[in-house]
């Protein structure tokens, strides 16, 4: 009977501890920030821009 009550008490206490422990995930936030900044500033596909310019330059001379 005592064990049963201890079990019940633990079941109530553990979720409370977890709730308190939901901290701001700084590392995940940095990762997310890096991903978004790379997209906005086009840092990971820098080769894209010159390629487009070359095509644009080549197009008029071909016509």
């Amino acid at each position, binding site marked *: 009977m005592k064990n*049963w009550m201890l079990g019940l008490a633990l079941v109530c206490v553990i979720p409370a501890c977890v709730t308190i422990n939901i901290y701001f995930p700084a590392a995940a936030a940095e990762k997310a920030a890096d*991903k978004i900044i790379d997209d906005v*500033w086009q840092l990971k596909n820098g080769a894209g821009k010159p390629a487009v310019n070359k095509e644009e330059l080549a197009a008029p001379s071909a016509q």
Partner: protein
Amino acid sequence: MKKILLGLVLLATLIGSQFVAAAADLEVNTPAISAIKNSMQARHTQLGAFYASGAIGLTKDGLIAVKDANAVPLAQRGALTGLVKDENADRSRLYKEIAVANGHPEWQAEIQSTFAGRWIDKAQSGWWVQGAGGWTQK
């Protein structure tokens, strides 16, 4: 007793796995976030030259600001002010949307300060960034 123990272990595993999943990654692939990102990406083609000339810089609070309006011809200054205003509105909305998408609107300020550091770290050399002591050139 055995059943209770088994139940406890199960519960702990369940809570533990949720907690780890929540800590691993932030959700940034919502339609709202993508729309803001696209808008900022399009605007960056105009802002790029202003960063390079020192007309604008990255602030320590994760936004941008006009640093030296004299670097821009008078006729363009109105447009620049508008661009900075729109960019800051998008940035503020971005930080808010990320916090909301992850179920923690109260994280907005921390997300903003995380971005502030990352924008400045990733800024190109020659761009102006705001530190504790004022503007410095990277």
